[in-house]
């Protein structure tokens, strides 16, 4: 009971308050940003509206500078529940296109990152030569190469899902590799000495000590990696003039200044991100609980 009450007053109520505040500020911003445009329009038309009528006008423009929350919600509802799943206008369809590239790239990137981390931990030459480059390359804005990778792969005949997925792979592999090197090295000397007194082989140390010890690091890094994967897939959809995916919706919205559509696509992207991160989070918790972590 007490835990429940702590959760309500300590977490839920403050979070809800902040969310409500964001919506209120959003509505306010819609008045402030759309107002001048309407005033301008009215001056030319020779009309004036005051008070509530004016405010309602700012919240119901067809192509507003800042769409009001309910306009975005209505558009989001229309493009998800209001159209067929296979329709080109369905945000669920576009989200799925982006998500499939994200997941494929994430899976490849995670596998690659784990393999590289295991090699780095076992081969001193790789540790000294490759690891510094991996760490440095995290400081480089690697997304900048996205357009080139897409065009390069198109030039050698690789199109569709794979190029986007490869950008996701590229973005997700770095955090996993770095996090797993840390995780595989996390066993303290006491545990390593213990394994030595058992004359354990390198493979046994890896399976029985290094890998179990790295599990918390693994989930922490794939949480970063999956968010990066999604960004990679979205950005990967920009330069191709892609026909499908959240990135293509953003691009189309920006061509026609359809702010409502852009916001609806952003909401779809955000929901994908929250779903993915939550999924990783829950899996991580379940696995760690099975491995005896304190709850």
């Amino acid at each position, binding site marked *: 009971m007490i835990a429940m009450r702590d959760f309500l007053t300590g977490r839920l109520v403050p979070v809800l308050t902040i969310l409500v505040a964001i919506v209120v500020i959003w509505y306010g911003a819609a008045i402030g940003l759309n107002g001048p445009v309407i005033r301008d329009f009215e001056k030319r038309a020779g009309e004036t509206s005051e008070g509530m009528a004016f405010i309602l006008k700012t919240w119901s423009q067809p192509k507003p500078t800042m769409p009001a929350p309910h306009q975005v919600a209505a558009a989001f509802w229309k493009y998800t529940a209001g159209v067929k799943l296979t329709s080109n206008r369905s945000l669920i369809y576009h989200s799925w296109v982006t998500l499939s590239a994200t997941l494929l790239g994430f899976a490849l990137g995670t596998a690659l990152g784990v393999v590289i981390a295991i090699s780095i931990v076992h081969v*001193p030459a790789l*540790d*000294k030569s490759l690891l510094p*480059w991996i760490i*440095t390359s995290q400081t480089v804005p690697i997304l900048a190469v996205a357009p080139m990778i897409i*065009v390069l792969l198109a030039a050698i005949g690789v199109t569709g899902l794979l190029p986007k997925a490869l950008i996701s792979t590229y973005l997700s592999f770095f955090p996993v590799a770095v996090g797993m090197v840390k995780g595989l090295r996390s066993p303290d000397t006491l545990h390593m000495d213990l394994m030595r007194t058992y004359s354990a082989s390198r493979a046994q140390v890896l399976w029985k000590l290094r890998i179990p010890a790295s599990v918390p690091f693994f989930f922490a890094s794939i949480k970063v990696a999956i968010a990066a994967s999604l960004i990679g897939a979205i950005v990967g959809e920009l330069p191709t003039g892609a026909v499908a995916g959240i990135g293509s919706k953003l691009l189309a919205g920006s061509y026609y200044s359809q702010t409502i559509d852009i916001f609806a*696509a*952003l909401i779809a992207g955000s929901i994908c991100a929250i779903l993915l991160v939550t999924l990783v989070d829950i899996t991580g918790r379940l696995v760690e609980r099975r491995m005896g972590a304190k709850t």
Partner: protein
Amino acid sequence: MSAVRPNWQALAALVTGLISLAGLPFTATMGTGASLLVTAIVLVAAILSMLKLRPVAQAIILAVASHFAAWLLIGGLADAFGTAGFGYFAALAASWLLAWRLVTVLSEMKFIAPVAKRTIALIVPAIFGIWILILWEALTRGAGVPFVLLPPPSSIGARIVTSTNILAADFVQTVVKAVLVGYIIGTFSGFLVAVMADRFRFLAAGLLPVGNMVAALPMIGIAPIMVIWFGFDWQSKAAVVVVMTFFPMLVNTLAGLAATGHMERDLMRTYGAGHWQVLAKLRLPVAMPFIFNALKINSTLALIGAIVAEFFGTPVVGMGFRISTEVGRMNLDMVWAEIALAAVVGSLFYGLLALAERIVTFWHPSYR
């Protein structure tokens, strides 16, 4: 005990070196004599590296032999684009194996002096980087990979030299204007909001989970909105950077301010210190590693934000603009030049922050 100590890199170099003899001469402009010289260097060095010599002597032999062979091989490609035969690539593989052996020897050296350790920690990755360039150059030019697919590093370097004014203009537009302005506004406001929210427990309790969630969202997607609001010039890119850098700073500062231990806070209470005194003397110093973490994350995010936002429309200058248009024109050497610039800027930015962090948080256990 025999005087020979075989290792797989040297053995493989020996085998590939011998294979290269079946493919003489290596390229159209490389004579048989020059080709034989390369093979001879590789074979001799491979054999020497299997003798029981001191590690330093081995390292010197391997360093000289592998890099001299590589230099000859790359020189042999002059006016011989795409004419390299299998002998050439076998010799290249052999010299690369020697370089791998060199890295292995250097990594296994045990040094006690900190200076020697640090030098090795710099030299080994440098050799790795140099060999990436050597292999890239030799493979693209030797095998005749079309420029539009993957230009060799030498032509990227040439492009950087001839396009310094374009690169400088792009740098000013993207980094000096968009990134710096956005970064400063975004991180400062994130910090200020965190410090103010921290005054009220309720606000901090609500902002932390929301901020954490927002930090995981693809915020880059607001770029088209910002372009509509603030126009094509750098202001819209700076706005994207502000939004992208605000939340990591907010979340990290809040977490850092909450990281103070009970004992330290109780100690400050026994002194009768007020809120701002506790903040200045205890909680901000403790929060510094968190704040620097956000500053470092933000340095990368800011560059990404500014470059990607330019894909949504810009005046005809800027790194993101250049990348997307030159990709369209298949001028990949220019694209690579911009990527090199972005890499240098990114690592310098990060490096400066890491240096500042060392100076400010010198007391942190990770620096001992």
